[in-house]
């Protein structure tokens, strides 16, 4: 397996994963979306809410705020070995919010009991309070999995495509393929059409160039064992940590399978 990082930032990454099968690539994608646990608000104790939003609507908005997650400190409540799932500092934390209008309440107004766990983005609007309106609440956040609810989904916009292969032979340089290409990556020179190596990964494999070529000079195919991966994190993890955690999940599942097979 080879990994070639093309872009890497705190929130997103693009890399080429090669010498693996499609099932493995899809396993990594699914693990990023559904199997990496994150923190999200699960219960809300409302002390006062005179805002225009219903209590339930407010709780839903709060639950969808991504929280920066420390995987080493917290564990999913169902798997908590300290309390057995009843709720303890190892599997839940509380956040409080107290605000009075006129103001727009933002995610940054949530005060966490753990300074390491904060809203990933401080500028997510929750509700607008007019003069005299008040909002006082305590929110309880749990660890959970993206497969159970979207609020625990750390990986967003995770996807991949095969690495494209474009070959040109006996081209008459008519330029029809370059005019048809929606990504504008085909260059026509005197010797014929060609795709620069740095633009090859932009190819969406639409094959429009193939269809307009009257002499079948251009061929588009793809590498079955190489994938261009793009992924974004919601902010609960950095993109790098999310990929590593997803890989650990896949590795853990494979080890679990081996141990089961060994017992047979």
């Amino acid at each position: 397996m080879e990994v070639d990082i093309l872009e890497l930032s705190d929130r997103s990454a693009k890399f080429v994963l090669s010498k693996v099968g499609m099932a493995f690539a899809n396993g990594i994608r699914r693990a990023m979306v559904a199997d990496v646990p994150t923190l999200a608000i699960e219960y809300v104790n409302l002390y006062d809410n005179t805002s225009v939003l219903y209590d339930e609507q407010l709780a839903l908005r709060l639950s969808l705020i991504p929280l920066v997650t420390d995987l080493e400190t917290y564990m999913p409540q169902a798997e908590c070995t300290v309390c057995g799932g009843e709720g303890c500092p190892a599997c839940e934390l509380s956040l409080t919010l107290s605000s009075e209008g006129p103001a727009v309440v933002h995610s940054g107004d949530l005060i966490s009991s753990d300074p390491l766990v904060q809203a990933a983005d401080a500028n997510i609007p929750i509700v607008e309070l007019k003069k005299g309106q008040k909002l006082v609440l305590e929110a309880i956040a749990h660890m959970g999995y993206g497969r159970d609810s979207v609020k625990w989904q750390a990986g967003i916009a995770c996807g991949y495509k095969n690495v494209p292969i474009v070959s040109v032979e006996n081209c008459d340089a008519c330029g029809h393929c370059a005019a048809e290409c929606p990504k504008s990556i085909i260059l026509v020179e005197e010797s014929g059409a060609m795709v620069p190596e740095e633009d090859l990964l932009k190819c969406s494999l639409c094959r429009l160039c193939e269809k307009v070529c009257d002499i079948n000079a251009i061929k588009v195919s793809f590498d079955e064992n190489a994938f261009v991966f793009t992924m974004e994190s919601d902010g609960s993890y950095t993109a790098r940590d999310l990929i590593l955690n997803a890989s650990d999940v896949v590795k853990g599942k494979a080890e679990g399978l081996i141990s089961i097979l060994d017992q047979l």
Partner: protein
Amino acid sequence: MGYKCTRCKQKVEIDYEYTGIRCPYCGHRILVKERPTTIKPIKAE
């Protein structure tokens, strides 16, 4: 059950045996239920 008149802001008790709903102080016919002072737990889903 406590209600509040939206015009005169007085607390009003409603007599359910009487068919009409009306504020006994100002006669206004729009009353709102007051939010209880207890903590309300909600599951965020």
